[in-house]
């Protein structure tokens, strides 16, 4: 076998700490090596041409390239090898940059290490087998998880491109947090006015299958070929029969037992309800926990009034299976609940602000509902405790955000803008009212964003105070807000009628569970991780799973929408071809040696191991053995490691190759 060794200087990157010419020289004498050369940039056109020329001239069978990480240029060098007639899997990359030069400073030692590393690769490449790529089909359907603005946008974009979409939303209606907002910055247009047409479009779209009140329970498969199990929770109302007339809702005698979560618990709702009037679909849900029927079997007024016989108390959850090729995660965020935390919580909470104790200390979303024309106060500013118009409101920013000691290290990004909006909306309606904002910094980067904040301060007279609030107490219906004005360098006390806390945006509490179900990584805060913070911000590290909106990190509406469209584009890129090419680095079980303990099946994270029967000619089953479905196998090697008798081999990284590598060290 004739092997070519090509050592790249990577400019200064490798050349600075590794004496590349010496490495190339030393490798000339390795058994099997026909030619060994070094070059400044092996990945450049002349570098690649040099590889091609040597392969043809010296009739090489395999090559070793000592360069950067295979993540960077393995593809480049494989293509060069293929162009010169070598199987792409007879190309070994020795990572002389990340694994050697970048992590050492002693030139002598690093050079010695580089020689050893190349020697290992030479021994491996001698045993490498030529492999052919695997082609797998692509299901051209997309699952979108989450029906907020990001999910809606992604679903519409994919569907408008002509591909089918399954949109799953856990709440009874799509719309997400955006449907709760009163107006949106920086233009102050009504949130529902711009959102609801999109919601209706989703509902009417022939390519979108909308599944509300549903949750993803299981995801099997891999890029292009996911099988998703979705739990369609029982509404106790027949979706096909219900016309959405709302008679059951008006007649339901349970009026005060359950809080309306859409109104952020500022109002009650009946046992049978739709979250809000423009809900899509406009089909109510019966809340089992408060409905009298589920307590004692009595009542049933809704059954009597429903002209369509749509009420079905015995309805059960349904499990639906969908085949999709791509998954877009758009599960959004939650607001940090700043109550006093239990002792074992890792977050300390902000008990000193009296949230939950004082009725007029509300969070951002509650204030949105108070400001909203469709909210519990019908758009009039009334404080929750006594319904009076507040004449003085204090807004506190960064509650939980940018506070590692009690909350979260990150900036929630949207609070500076929405607090300015809140203060502005208040001043527009209560002309004699006073609005104070306690802030740490005003972060208003974005088109027309800083102008918006300036408008709040300069035109609407909102008073901004740089500093933190230490304590809020109640005295005769007034809230005594004690803080510090750090610019003036003095303590400040404001007697407010109401306090609004801009609490941190946090990941959905079940985000980590969902991430484990789908099989994508997430950070310590529960936000899903992108594959690369700069160059691959839309993809998760799992092929075929894309991220949109605030499930990845705090985001405002335009950012979420942009990300959703990007995720949709990524899904469409996937659907651009009928077959996906996969690396043939897959496991194979030896049918002779397998004892059928199926430990590999238990540990396989991709469900790629199947049970296969070995039969005699007369059909008698002799034994059951493990079989790896190469379409599902991702080549992680967990099965090869777990096999007690080492009867599973990973193509491209088989036992012999790895042992030869170690032995060469």
């Amino acid at each position, binding site marked *: 076998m004739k092997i070519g060794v090509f050592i790249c200087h990577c400019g200064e990157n490798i050349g600075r700490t590794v004496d590349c010419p010496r490495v190339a020289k030393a490798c000339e004498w390795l058994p099997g090596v026909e030619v060994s050369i070094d070059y400044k940039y092996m990945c450049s056109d002349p570098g690649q041409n040099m590889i091609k020329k040597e392969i043809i001239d010296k009739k090489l069978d395999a090559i070793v390239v000592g360069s950067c990480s295979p993540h960077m240029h393995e593809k480049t060098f494989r293509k060069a090898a293929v162009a010169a007639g070598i199987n792409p899997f007879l190309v070994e990359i020795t990572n002389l940059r990340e694994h050697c030069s970048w992590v050492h400073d002693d030139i002598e030692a690093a050079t010695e290490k580089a020689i050893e590393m190349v020697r290992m690769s030479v021994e491996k490449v001698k045993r490498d087998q030529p492999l052919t790529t695997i082609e797998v089909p692509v299901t051209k359907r997309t699952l979108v998880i989450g029906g907020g603005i990001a999910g809606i946008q992604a679903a519409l974009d994919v569907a408008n491109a002509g591909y089918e979409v399954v949109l799953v939303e856990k709440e009874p209606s799509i719309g997400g947090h955006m449907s709760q907002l009163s107006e949106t910055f920086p233009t102050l247009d009504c949130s529902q006015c711009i959102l609801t047409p999109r919601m209706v479009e989703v509902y009417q779209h022939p390519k979108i299958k909308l599944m509300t009140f549903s949750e993803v329970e299981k995801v099997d498969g891999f890029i292009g070929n996911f099988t998703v199990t979705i739990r369609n929770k029982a509404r106790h109302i027949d979706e096909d029969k219900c016309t959405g007339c709302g008679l059951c809702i008006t007649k339901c005698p349970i009026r005060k037992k359950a809080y309306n979560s859409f109104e952020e618990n500022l109002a009650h709702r009946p046992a049978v309800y739709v979250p809000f009037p423009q809900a899509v679909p406009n089909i109510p849900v019966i809340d089992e926990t408060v409905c009298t029927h589920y307590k004692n079997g009595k009542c049933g007024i809704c059954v009597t009034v429903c002209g369509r016989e749509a009420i079905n108390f015995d309805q059960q959850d349904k499990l639906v299976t969908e085949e999709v090729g791509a998954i877009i995660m758009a599960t959004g965020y939650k607001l940090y609940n700043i109550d006093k935390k239990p002792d074992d919580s890792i977050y300390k909470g902000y008990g000193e602000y009296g949230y939950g104790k004082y009725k007029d200390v509300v969070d951002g979303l509650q204030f949105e509902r108070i400001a909203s024309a469709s909210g519990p106060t019908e758009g009039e500013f009334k404080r929750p405790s006594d319904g009076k118009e507040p004449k003085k409101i204090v807004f506190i920013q960064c509650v939980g955000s940018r506070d590692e000691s009690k909350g979260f290290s990150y900036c929630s990004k949207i609070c500076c803008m929405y607090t300015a909006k809140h203060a502005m909306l208040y001043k527009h309606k209560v002309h004699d009212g006073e609005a104070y904002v306690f802030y740490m910094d005003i972060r208003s980067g974005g088109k027309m964003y800083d102008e918006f904040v300036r408008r709040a301060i300069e035109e609407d007279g909102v008073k901004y105070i740089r500093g933190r609030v230490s304590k809020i107490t109640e005295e005769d219906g007034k809230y005594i807000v004690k803080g510090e004005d750090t610019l003036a360098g003095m303590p400040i006390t404001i007697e407010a009628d109401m306090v609004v806390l801009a609490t941190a945006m946090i990941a959905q509490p079940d985000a980590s569970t969902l991430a484990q179900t789908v099989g994508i990584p997430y950070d310590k805060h529960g936000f899903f991780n992108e594959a690369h913070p700069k160059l691959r911000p839309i993809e998760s590290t799992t092929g075929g799973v894309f991220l949109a909106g605030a499930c990845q990190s705090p985001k405002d509406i335009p950012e979420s929408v942009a990300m959703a469209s990007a995720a949709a584009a990524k899904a469409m890129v996937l659907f651009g071809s009928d077959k996906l090419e996969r690396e043939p680095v897959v496991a194979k079980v030896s049918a002779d040696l397998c*004892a*059928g*303990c*199926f*430990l590999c099946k238990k540990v396989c994270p991709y469900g790629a191991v199947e049970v296969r029967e070995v039969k005699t000619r007369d059909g*008698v089953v002799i034994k059951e053995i493990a079989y790896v479905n190469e379409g599902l196998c991702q080549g992680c090697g967990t099965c090869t490691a777990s096999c*007690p*008798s080492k*009867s599973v081999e990973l193509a491209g990284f088989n036992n012999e190759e790895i042992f030869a590598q170690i032995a060469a060290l």
Partner: protein
Amino acid sequence: MDDLRKYAAELLEKGEVAAVIGYQQVSEKRTKPIIAKTAEDCAKLVFNEYCLNNLAVYLTKARVKELRRVNGAVLKLAITAKPCDVHGIVALIQESQLKREDVTIISFNCAGVVKDFGMDFNGETLATKCVPCDTHKPLYSDMVFGEEKETPKVSDEVLAKIESIEKMSAAERFEYFKAEFDKCIKCYACRAACPLCYCQRCITDKTIPRWVESSAHSRGNFSWNVVRAFHLSGRCIGCGECERACPMDIPLSLLNRKMVIEAKEAYSYISGRSLETPTLVGSFDVKDSDELFM
């Protein structure tokens, strides 16, 4: 005894099972395994405190699996098993080597067996594996024979030895096991006697590339014995057959018992106790302790 013989003969006659794997008496204080295929064979079946072998080992050997095929049909196998041997059968079912419906378990109420053939069975000669045993009635069976009897109370020498080894320094411990393992002649009798060593090709026999060194050097001795202990971690049911089979008297149960204790303490798991529990190796719970991760 007659009940057992009658029951076994009936199973064969009715064509329910292809054979009954059991014990036969060879002398007053010695038994040996028998694979009974006829009524006459069944008349030899016995059960007493000299039934030392763990017959579960036969359920995995391909040679005996052949037994199940009678005139083109595949019948069940019946096996007589002590309650502790049933653990072995359960472990095999847990590890997909056997299906519960393929085996008829004939078990006994057991008060312990003798240390070795030829000894009188009294309190002093109780087998070491019986000392910590808490299953005197089978956990799974299709038929149970024998009366419940009191097990003799004997001090747990193996546990005492483990505790004394734990007190040693790492160097002392190494020297102790080096001396013990240096006796090893690589006859692999431990592997042959173990019901859970069912691999078609043992990792030790894999030579291209060689994973486990098999030289007569201490390296090879450690390789084999430590690899075996690791391969049995969380799986060993503590039948002690390896130690009994060892011609060089290597105290293998020290290692195996220690691993059983570790698995129990860290994961509350003992192999072969429940058909419903997933195997320790190959199942994961977020509450699992990270301590034993290497």
